[in-house]
Each structure stands twice: as C-alpha cells, then as structure tokens.
C-alpha cells in the first residue's frame, strides 16, 4: 500500500520551505507509516528548502532511526531537491547513529 503526498498542494508558490508547513504533513506521514504503508512524496512542480525537508523527514529519522527511510519514496525531484534530501537524510542518520551508539 502507498500513501501519496503531492507537495504542490501545500505550496504557496514554486518553493515550499517553512518548517511550519511540514508539521501537519509529518503527522500525516506518521499515520501512514504506522499502518505499514509506504509514503510517496511527490515533488512535481516544487522546490524545497533544507529546513522543510528536515522538519518533514529529518525529525522522523531522529525519532525512528534511518530504517524509516525504507518506507519512503521521493518522486519527481529536481536535482536541487534530491541534493537536499540526500543531505538531510544522511546528516540526521549520522546524528541518530552517533546518539544510539552506546
């Protein structure tokens, strides 16, 4: 089962960037993950900031660990969005692993 999240529906222009915007979306994602569904983030038509991606995905990695990424799909990302997602995921996974090393 897949839950689709078209980010453009939450944008007020070409960029979706406020941490605040990510919070209700993340609650939606957490519900979907809890039901065992994969979550598909659809980036068609939008660019994102690092802060938005961190509030959406980085927080979930800190809470649940990097394995949560196995349930996530990033669809139709621009090169810039992809770079930001890769950075946030890697940085927060690194932080999680260091915190839980002992």
């Amino acid at each position, binding site marked *: 089962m897949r839950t689709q999240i078209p980010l453009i529906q939450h944008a007020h222009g*070409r960029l979706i960037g406020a941490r605040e915007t990510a919070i209700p979306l993340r609650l939606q994602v957490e519900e979907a993950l809890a039901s065992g569904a994969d979550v598909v983030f659809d980036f068609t038509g939008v660019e994102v900031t690092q802060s938005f991606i961190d509030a959406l995905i980085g927080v979930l990695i800190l*809470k649940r660990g990097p394995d949560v990424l196995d349930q996530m799909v990033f669809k*139709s990302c621009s090169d810039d969005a992809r770079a930001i997602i890769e950075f946030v995921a890697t940085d927060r996974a690194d932080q999680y692993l260091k915190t839980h090393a002992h």
Partner: protein
Amino acid sequence: MTSLVCPAYLSVKTPDSLIGLCGTALAAEDGVTLEAHALRFADPFGLALLGATFYMLQRRGQKVRVAGLSDAVGSYLQRMDVFEGVELVDCAPPRGQRHDQSDGLVELTRLDQRNQIDRAANQLAEALVGRMPDIDPNEPWDEMSGDNTADRIAIPISYALTELLNNAMSHARLKGHGDACVWVASQYYRKTGRLQLAVVDNGCGMLETLRYHASLRDLPRKTDLEAILAALRPRVSCNRDLGVFNDSVNQGIGLTTTARIAEHAGGRLVVVSGAGYHDPLGQSRRLANSARWQGVAIALECQRDALLNVRYRELMPPIEGMPPLHLRFEE
C-alpha cells in the same frame, strides 16, 4: 519630543551610524522627531531597521515625526511603506509614483506569524523578480528543468528569505520575546545588477539563543560577535536535538546555506546582532559608539544573474565518515 539628526546614509555600508540612530530613537522616553534634511540614500537594510524602529516606538505610544525629507528620498521611502503612522513635516509631497515598478523595489513587509512564511517568501521573491524590467515571467519553460529564467532567479531568493524567516520566527521569539516581529525589504539595482534582501527582527538576538550552546559555553567571554560567528557554522543550533515534544526545531544549516547562496552568487551575508557586526568581505567587529540592535538584522547582497548558477548540492556542508544511504528516488 526628542530630536535626532538622520545621517546622510541609512545603509549596510554605514552600520554604526544607522544602528546608533535606531538605538537612540528607541531609548527616547517621549516622541521622536527625525531631522532628515541630510538623508541622501537608504537601502533595504536601512529601511527595514528604520521601519522596525518606527513600529516599536508607535507600539509604545510614542509619536514619530520625520522632518525635512528631500523630494527624491521622501518619495522613495513613501513607496517602501516606511512611514505608516508617521507624521511628515516640512517634506516634499509624494510624487504619486507609488506603484512605479521601474526601480525594482519591494515594499517593507512586517510578519508576526510563522504560517505567513511560505506565502510571504514566495510573494516577495516573485514581486522582486516581477519588477526586473529585463526578466519576462511569461518566458516559456525549459522542457528539461520545467522552469524559466524568472523562476531560476526567484527560487534562490525565496529560499534565502524562507530560511532567514524560519530562523527569525523561531529563535527570535525565545527568552521572553514571544511577540517579536520580522521586517523584510528588498531591492534590485538595475545599474549594477545587484540585489539586496534585508530581514530584521526585534527578538532575543543570537547571543541569548546560543549562550548555553557548546560552541560558546567554554568561552571566557561570550560576545555578540562570537554568537554570530557560531551561528554561521554548520550544525550549530540551540535545538538541534529532539525536544520535549519529541520534535526537532532546527538542523543548524539554514543560515549557513543562506550565506553560501550569497557567496556563490558573488555577494555576502552581513549579520548584526546586539553589538556584533559580521561582514565576510570586510571587518567583523563590535559596532562603534555603543551602538547595538536588540535582535538580528541581516542583509543578503548578491549579483542577480549569478543566482542562475546556484546549485544546492555545492552548498551543503560535507558529512564525513557516513556512507551514502540508499534512498528510493522515482521519476
């Protein structure tokens, strides 16, 4: 009324006199008259600080009067919406060009709600690009990237504004400054091809935000400038870890990335907080004459056309020792 003489320049290039003026005005206990005969030039940084100062004075019930503005400067400041509630005395009448878009300026905007950030950042960036006479917002989209020149300029502007507003709306409101506001102004200077964005808040300031952070904890003397320099380093944030509500407020990357956008676009990010002043292309120092700004004031300057070449992959700080993750990307 307390009478103050306005300097000739209200600009990021003259931070000591600009912030000294704002501080003196805010220290007044009665109404303030700004004698502005000498004022010749103001940039978005100066306008945002002046607008914030006028707003705070009026919130305290203090009358604000501006006297002796020249025709050119007065007309410009009118169009930038700096004078809301301000009494103008002995000033040349406005020339009726309030909506003239030829000079690429976007009016001073005040924000006080976090849920305004996305809408405001996108609208301000689009307004700024929309007032660039050589950029056609209706240019056909590139088939590969799905955007056009206007988008490729507007998106990094919006990105920088959003990150600065994210910071201002979260950190500024700590330590008893829950009612802090943020002011944004911007302008594109056609002759030089440069643009300036200014984001000013009246919150707790960087030193209060980072006072107990590891980057400052062991310093014998904690200063505003040390706090600014720490905040510009990647992964320095007062709340990088999960908080009491199992949330994380900040990764500590936003300000670093914004500074790098400016740098990659041939510009700089100037930061003032308290008595600290940081200019990556000039001096980082304590403001002269005991000048200080309660909050954070930032100016991003860059070459407009260089924004077309900003690539976010090059802006992100390195992560050492961590193997790449397997992430599921789909077309």
